[in-house]
């Protein structure tokens, strides 16, 4: 019998999980269930608003009425919604959720709120993979996925593994080494695109594909591609679930985590695999989109606190909302001209991130 067991008896009739947890909230943080409900409603509203927006305006009420079985839409409207707008809106949701979750995982893994899937190098690997796909295997595809998407995935996973092993020495990961190694590898591989362009014989068409990919444009995916991506997203999110509690433990440092009975290396590998899978899902649908993976977990952490278990669903929903809104703006702000959502994110995200940095610089003394 443990000596601690002699302490007071527990009260009969436990309070429900959320009540018990919310009582321990420090000032300035919001309740988990409230936030989840709010975000779910917001996501549905944002998706509805987004599919209603475009050159041919279809009122959100009309879409709702059609969904409920009254007043069916015209066949043109149906085509626009189902073949063009909905796939794109859903794709941006998938990309946003994937980027946000992988950002959360990498920030937790590296114990650094400034880490994101791109900062630490996976983007460079993805660029190299995508280039090989665009320039050499442009005809190849499986389930709607081009070689570009598949090789971008492989590139981001391999780069992550390289950067991670470079940053480790005698069982510890040095954060500065990690960021520098990530920066170096990412820059090196990222510039490989110029090499491919220089020796390209397609008279510029591959160059345009590559350019849009680098700027982050969410195209109009086929439904098969979308469903495979969504499956990957769900798989990675499900894989991520048991890892979230372990990320909290890892936040105390490697040695502490080991002392608490956590298998640190296996946990790390699991997080890198799931995080890379998510990055690659995002990259394969939308190319390189910066800042989403950095800002969304950051804001969620400010609202909810750093518990990764509760951050997972909140960042996923917030990421989806964030990117659906951003992509809607990207295609409608200067309509009919469309700006790449990646560029919009950089313009919106950069200043916002700097603002956050100034607000919270006291909290992040590393």
């Amino acid at each position, binding site marked *: 019998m443990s000596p*601690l067991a002699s302490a007071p008896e527990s009260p009969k009739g436990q309070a429900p999980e959320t009540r018990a947890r919310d009582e321990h909230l420090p000032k300035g943080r919001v309740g988990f269930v409230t936030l989840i409900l709010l975000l779910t409603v917001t996501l549905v509203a944002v998706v509805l608003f987004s599919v209603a927006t475009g050159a041919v305006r279809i009122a959100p009420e009309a879409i709702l009425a059609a969904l409920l079985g009254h007043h069916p839409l015209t066949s043109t409207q149906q085509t626009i919604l189902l073949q063009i707008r909905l796939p794109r809106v859903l794709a941006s949701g998938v990309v946003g959720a994937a980027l946000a979750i992988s950002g959360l995982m990498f920030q937790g893994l590296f114990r650094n709120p400034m880490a994101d899937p791109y900062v630490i190098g996976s983007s460079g690997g993805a660029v190299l993979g995508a280039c090989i796909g665009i320039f050499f295997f442009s005809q190849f595809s499986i389930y709607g996925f081009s070689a570009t998407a598949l090789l971008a995935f492989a590139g981001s996973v391999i780069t992550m593994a390289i950067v991670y092993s470079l940053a480790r020495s005698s069982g510890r990961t040095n954060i500065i080494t990690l960021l520098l190694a990530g920066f170096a590898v990412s820059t090196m591989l990222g510039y490989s695109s110029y090499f491919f362009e220089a020796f390209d014989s397609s008279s510029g068409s591959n160059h345009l594909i590559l350019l849009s990919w680098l700027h982050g444009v969410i195209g109009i995916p086929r439904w098969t591609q979308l469903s495979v991506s969504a499956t990957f997203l769900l798989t990675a999110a499900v894989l991520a679930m048991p890892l979230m509690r372990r990320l909290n433990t890892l936040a105390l440092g490697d040695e502490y985590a080991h002392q608490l009975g956590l298998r640190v290396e296996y946990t790390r590998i699991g997080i890198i695999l799931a995080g890379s899978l998510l990055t690659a899902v995002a990259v394969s649908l939308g190319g390189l989109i910066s800042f989403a993976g950095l800002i969304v977990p950051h804001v969620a952490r400010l609202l909810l606190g750093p518990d990764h278990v509760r951050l997972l669903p909140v960042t996923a929903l917030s990421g989806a909302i964030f990117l659906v809104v951003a992509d809607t703006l990207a295609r409608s702000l200067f309509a009919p001209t469309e700006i790449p959502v990646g560029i919009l994110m950089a313009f919106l995200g950069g200043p916002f991130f700097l603002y956050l940095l100034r607000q919270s610089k006291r909290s992040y003394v590393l």
Partner: protein
Amino acid sequence: MNALLSFRDVSFGYDELDVIQSASFDLQAGDCTALIGPNGAGKTTMLRLAAGTLRCGSGNVLLNGESLDTLAIRKVARTVALVPQQLDVPFQFTVREVVEQGRTPYLGFLRGLMSEDRMAVDRALDLADLTGLQKRIFNELSGGERQRVKIALGLAQEPKLLLLDEPTQNLDIGRQVELIDLLHFLHEEGITIFASIHDLQLVEGNFSSVLLLSPDTPLMRGTAEEILKPSILEKAFNCPPRRHPLLLERIQRYERRAG
């Protein structure tokens, strides 16, 4: 009956540098032992070996008679808790969230905290007198409060053996006394204590036995009275006898007793 913790001919070195050379000793359940020795003698290393976060180069560390090499690390973590010198938390975790991590060795693959885990966390917070601070952000606490959070984190593991690495370091004298009182209380609750202590003045009267680790003397074990002799300390700490008030005071005490 097996000792709670046994070192059998344990040696350990970092790269070429031998830190611990064939150390053997037993800790019985209920002991309250101070680990003393000069800087760099390997006190932290010895505690890490005891907690299983370092594997010994040769020899064996036994927990209740079983080698740490063969025990699952989760099982070790339910028996031994190590309170290290330093805990850096990168995010704004609350005190409670930090202490909850102590339940890690009890959680299944998918299972989160259950009501018994929450009770253990409540007890640990209560024992370390942190119940009123549990909503505070760990990074915003003072050094003495952080020390208590680290101990509460260890207590949430419900350990039989609590290892502490210089728990009184950087504490003012009031917080040092508080911490020693807390250790006494935990010891009375039945937890075996093994703590490295830098400040020798805190050892006497507070620990039932003392283990002296020094590169210049063999590993020595005894009561505070037996180990804290000027002749031993002078050699182990390589300190000229009349240059430090602690040694001077002890020499004078021995002289008075002799005269």
